[in-house]
C-alpha cells in the first residue's frame, strides 16, 4: 500500500516537473518575442470611443510616397495624405486640378519615396501650421497645410539626387533644406562615372519659407565635395543660425559603397553658418547657374494647382562662403546629426561606430575662433575631433542611428543592429536604460523631440523589419511602429501598430494645436475655380470641337445634369463637378464607366475635374461613389455616346427635360 502511494507520488512529481518544463519552455518562447507589457499598458493606450487622442503624428509613408496621420497613444490611422504619388481614392494626381502637382523637369512623375516629415516651427517649437516632407528619388520638398491636410506646394531641387538630408527646418522655419544623398554633376551632364572625384559634387540647397504664406523659394545651393549627405538638423537657442549635416562616403567611392564607403574611421558632420551665408548672398556672392526645376502650388480658392518652371539657381562654392562651413570629424558613416533642446550639444549617430559622439557647440565656436584645424577638404576647414567633442557615450549598442530628446535631460538613440533603444544622460553621457524593439529600428520620435520643447511622454520606434509582430499577410508584410512610455525612469513598451510604406520618420504635436484650425468645408462663395458653378441653374454641357465640358453640380442626392446626350466617339469630355454642399462631412464622389482615369472625391464647396474619353457608342452610367445620404444609391445618371458622324445634338437635363 505504502509502495503504491510512493509510486503514485513519483508519477505525480514527474508529471508536475514535465508540465512545469512545458510551461517554462512556453514562457521562454514568449519571452523571445518581446517582454510582457506592463499591466497598466492597456489603459495608457486606450482611447474611449468618441474621445480624442492626445497627439497627432505625421508619419512618413516611405515608398508609398505619401504621409499618414496617426493618433497617439492609440496608434489609430486617421488619414493618408497623398503627396508624391497619385491617389485614385480621391483623384490626387489624376484630376486636371492636381496633375500639375506631380510635374517635374523630368516629366510627370506618379510616385516618389517620401522620407522625413518636419513640422513648421515658431521659436524652436512646432506650431502646427504646416508639415514638410521630402521626396527622395526625384528630389523635391512638399508642404502640407494642416488646415486642410492637403499637399499645397511641391518644389523640385535641381543639381541634387536622392534628396535624403531634408527637409529639416530652422527655429522659425526660415528655411527647409535639401542635402543630396548622391553626389552628381552640377548641371547634370554626360561624364564617365569613373570621373566621380572631378565631376561630381554634393549640393546642399536652402529653400526659403515665407513666414506668412509658407511659400517656398530656392534661395541658394552650396556646392561641396562629392560626399553623400545623409541627415541634418538646424541649431537652436545658442546654435540658432547653424545647420549640421551628417555625411558618409567621404572616401568618394562610386561603386560597391557598402565596402568602399566604409573604410575611414571617421567621416564628417558639416557645420554651416547659414546666417553668415545669407549675408554673403545679400552682398552679392555666388554664381547664377542655369538649370530647370518645377515649383507647383495648389490654391485653395481656385482648387487648382499651377506649375512654374524656373531656370536659374544661385550656387556658392566653399571659396564663396569662406568662414561659414566647417567639417567636424565624426565616427563612422554617421546617420543622425541631432541637436539637443538646449542647442548646445550635437549628437552624431555613427551607424558603424562603437560610441556615440556628442559635440559641443561652445567648443566648436572656440575652435573656429582659434583656427584650430587639422586640415581642409576642398577649401572647407576640418576641425579637430577632440577640440569639438563634449564626450562619448560608451557601449551604446550596435549601429546607433538617430537620437531624440525628452524634457528631462535625456537622449534616446535608436540602434539598428542591436535592435534596441538606448536612453542616456546628455550631461554625463551615461547609459541609464535600454530596451529591445522589434525589429531593427530606424528613426525614433518623441513629440517635439528635436525641438526646444519636447513633450516627453511617448516615444515611437519606427522599425524596419516586422516579421512575426502581426498576423502574417504573405511575403509582403505591413510596416511596424511601437509606442513606448518614457514618462518614468524605465522605458515601457505599451503598443505595437502597423504603418503604411516604410515609416522612415515621423513628427508629433499636441492635438489641439492642429485640430482647432481644421477646416470643415470650403466656402462656396470663395470658390473661384474657372469651371465652378454655384447654382444648379448654371449646369450645362458645352462643346468646343471634339472637346466637351460638362459643368455639373452635386448635392444630396442628385447630379445636375444627370442625362447627357450628343457626345460622340472620340470626344474628350471634362466633367467639372462642384459640390454645392456647405455642410460638414458631405463629400460627393463621381465615377463614369470605363474611365481610364480615377474617380473624383469632391469636398463641400470644391470643384474638381476629371477627363474621360468617349470611345465606343453606347450608354455610360455615372454615379456618386461616396455614400452621401439615404438616397445615395439614386444619385446616378446616364451619358449617351453616339457615332462620330451622328447628328444627335448636345442636350442635358435633370428631372424635367430642359
Amino acid at each position, binding site marked *: 500500500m505504502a509502495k503504491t502511494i510512493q509510486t503514485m507520488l513519483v508519477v505525480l512529481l514527474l508529471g508536475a516537473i514535465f508540465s512545469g518544463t512545458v510551461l517554462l519552455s512556453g514562457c521562454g518562447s514568449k519571452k523571445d518575442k518581446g517582454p510582457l507589457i506592463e499591466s497598466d499598458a492597456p489603459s495608457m493606450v486606450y482611447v474611449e470611443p468618441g474621445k480624442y487622442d492626445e497627439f497627432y503624428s505625421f508619419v512618413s509613408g516611405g515608398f508609398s510616397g505619401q504621409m499618414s496621420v496617426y493618433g497617439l497613444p492609440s496608434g489609430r490611422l486617421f488619414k493618408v495624405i497623398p503627396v508624391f504619388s497619385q491617389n485614385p481614392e480621391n483623384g490626387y494626381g489624376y484630376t486636371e486640378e492636381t496633375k500639375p502637382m506631380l510635374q517635374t523637369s523630368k516629366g510627370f512623375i506618379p510616385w516618389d519615396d517620401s522620407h522625413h516629415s518636419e513640422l513648421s516651427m515658431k521659436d524652436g517649437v512646432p506650431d502646427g501650421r504646416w508639415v514638410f516632407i521630402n521626396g527622395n528619388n526625384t528630389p523635391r520638398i512638399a508642404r502640407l497645410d494642416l488646415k486642410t491636410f492637403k499637399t499645397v506646394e511641391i518644389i523640385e531641387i535641381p543639381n541634387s539626387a536622392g534628396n535624403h538630408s531634408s527637409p529639416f527646418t530652422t527655429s522659425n522655419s526660415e528655411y527647409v533644406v535639401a542635402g543630396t544623398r548622391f553626389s552628381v554633376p552640377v548641371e547634370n551632364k554626360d561624364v564617365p562615372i569613373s570621373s566621380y572625384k572631378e565631376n561630381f559634387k554634393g549640393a546642399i540647397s536652402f529653400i526659403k519659407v515665407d513666414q506668412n504664406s509658407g511659400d517656398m523659394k530656392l534661395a541658394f545651393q552650396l556646392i561641396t565635395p562629392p560626399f553623400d549627405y545623409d541627415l541634418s538638423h538646424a541649431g537652436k537657442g545658442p546654435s540658432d543660425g547653424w545647420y549640421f549635416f551628417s555625411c558618409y562616403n567621404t572616401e568618394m567611392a562610386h561603386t560597391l559603397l557598402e565596402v568602399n564607403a566604409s573604410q575611414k574611421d571617421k567621416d564628417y558632420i558639416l557645420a554651416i553658418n547659414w546666417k553668415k551665408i545669407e549675408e554673403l548672398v545679400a552682398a552679392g556672392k555666388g554664381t547664377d547657374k542655369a538649370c530647370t526645376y518645377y515649383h507647383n502650388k495648389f490654391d485653395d480658392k481656385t482648387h487648382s494647382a499651377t506649375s512654374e518652371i524656373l531656370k536659374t539657381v544661385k550656387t556658392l562654392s566653399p571659396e564663396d562662403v569662406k568662414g561659414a562651413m566647417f567639417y567636424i570629424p565624426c565616427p563612422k558613416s554617421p546617420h543622425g546629426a541631432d541637436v539637443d533642446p538646449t542647442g548646445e550639444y550635437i549628437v552624431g549617430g555613427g551607424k558603424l561606430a562603437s560610441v556615440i559622439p556628442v559635440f559641443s557647440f561652445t567648443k566648436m565656436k572656440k575652435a573656429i575662433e582659434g583656427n584650430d584645424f587639422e586640415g581642409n577638404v576642398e577649401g572647407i576647414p576640418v576641425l579637430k575631433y577632440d577640440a569639438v567633442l563634449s564626450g562619448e557615450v560608451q557601449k551604446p549598442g550596435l549601429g546607433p542611428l538617430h537620437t531624440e530628446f525628452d524634457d528631462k535631460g535625456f537622449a534616446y538613440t535608436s540602434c539598428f543592429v542591436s535592435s534596441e533603444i538606448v536612453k542616456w544622460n546628455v550631461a554625463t553621457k551615461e547609459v541609464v536604460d535600454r530596451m529591445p524593439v522589434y525589429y531593427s529600428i530606424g528613426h525614433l520620435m518623441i513629440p517635439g523631440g528635436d525641438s526646444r520643447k519636447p513633450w516627453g511622454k511617448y516615444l515611437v520606434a519606427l522599425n524596419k523589419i516586422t516579421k512575426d509582430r502581426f498576423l502574417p499577410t504573405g511575403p509582403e508584410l505591413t510596416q511596424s511602429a511601437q509606442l513606448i512610455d518614457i514618462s518614468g525612469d524605465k522605458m515601457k513598451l505599451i503598443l505595437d501598430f502597423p504603418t503604411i510604406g516604410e515609416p522612415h520618420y515621423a513628427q508629433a504635436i499636441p492635438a489641439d494645436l492642429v485640430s482647432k484650425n481644421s477646416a470643415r468645408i470650403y466656402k462656396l462663395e470663395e470658390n473661384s475655380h474657372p469651371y465652378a458653378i454655384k447654382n444648379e441653374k448654371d449646369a450645362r454641357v458645352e462643346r468646343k470641337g471634339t472637346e466637351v465640358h460638362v459643368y455639373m453640380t452635386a448635392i444630396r*442626392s442628385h447630379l445636375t445634369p444627370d442625362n447627357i446626350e450628343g457626345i460622340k466617339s472620340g470626344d474628350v469630355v471634362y466633367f467639372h463637378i462642384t459640390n454645392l454642399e456647405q*455642410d460638414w462631412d458631405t463629400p460627393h464622389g463621381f465615377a463614369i464607366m470605363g474611365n481610364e482615369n480615377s474617380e473624383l472625391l469632391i469636398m463641400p464647396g470644391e470643384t474638381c475635374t476629371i477627363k474621360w474619353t468617349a470611345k465606343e457608342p453606347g450608354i455610360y452610367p455615372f454615379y456618386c461613389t461616396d455614400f452621401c445620404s*439615404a438616397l445615395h444609391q439614386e444619385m446616378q445618371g446616364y451619358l449617351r455616346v453616339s457615332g462620330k458622324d451622328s447628328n444627335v445634338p448636345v442636350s442635358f437635363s435633370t428631372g424635367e427635360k430642359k
Partner: protein
Amino acid sequence: MNMKKTSRISVLIISLALIAVYFLPVWEIELEAPQYPEGLGMNIWINKITGDLNTINGLNHYIGMKTIQPDSIKELTLMPYILGALILLGISVVIAGRKKLLLVWVIFFMMLGIAGGVDFYLWEYDYGHNLNPEAAIKIPGMSYQPPLIGSKQLANFTAYSIPDTGGIILIGAGIASLVIMLYDSRKWGRTKKRLINKNIN
C-alpha cells in the same frame, strides 16, 4: 388720469430695451440627430433667418417640405415696422403719462404676442403638413411640424423650439408691461386688500 413716476420710468426702460430686439435673434429652432452631433440651428430675427438654413432646406427636400426662403416670408418685412410702432407707442406713453394710453399700449403688446404666436404656429403647421406628394421619404401619418415651444421628435431629428435672446427680451418686456399696468392701477392696492381680507375670513 396720470401715471405714477416709477411706471413712466419703467415704460421708458422697456421701450428702450425693445430696441435691442432689432439686433438680436428672436427665436431659435435647433435640430439634433445621430449623424448631426454638432446640431443644426436656425435663428429667426425680426427681419431675417440665419444659421444652417441651406443645410436644413437640403435635408427637408427629402420629406417634401417647402424650401424656407426668407425673402418670401412677409412677416419678416412687417415685423420691423410693428416693433417700431410698439416702441414709439411706448415712448408716447412715457411722454403723455396717461393711464389710458398705457392700457392701449399694453393691450397692443399683448395682442401682438398672441398674434405672433398664432402666426408662428400656422407657419410651422404649413411647413410641417403641406408636403410635396412626390417626396422621396414618406412616413404614413407623419407630419413634421416643429413644436411652438419645447421639443419634439421628428423622424431622426429632435427639434427644439426656444426663444432666443431677442425673444427673451420680448417676453420679459411683455410680462413687465402687464405688471406695470397692474401696479399703476389703483385697483392693485384694493384687490390686494380684498384678497387678504378674504383669506382672513
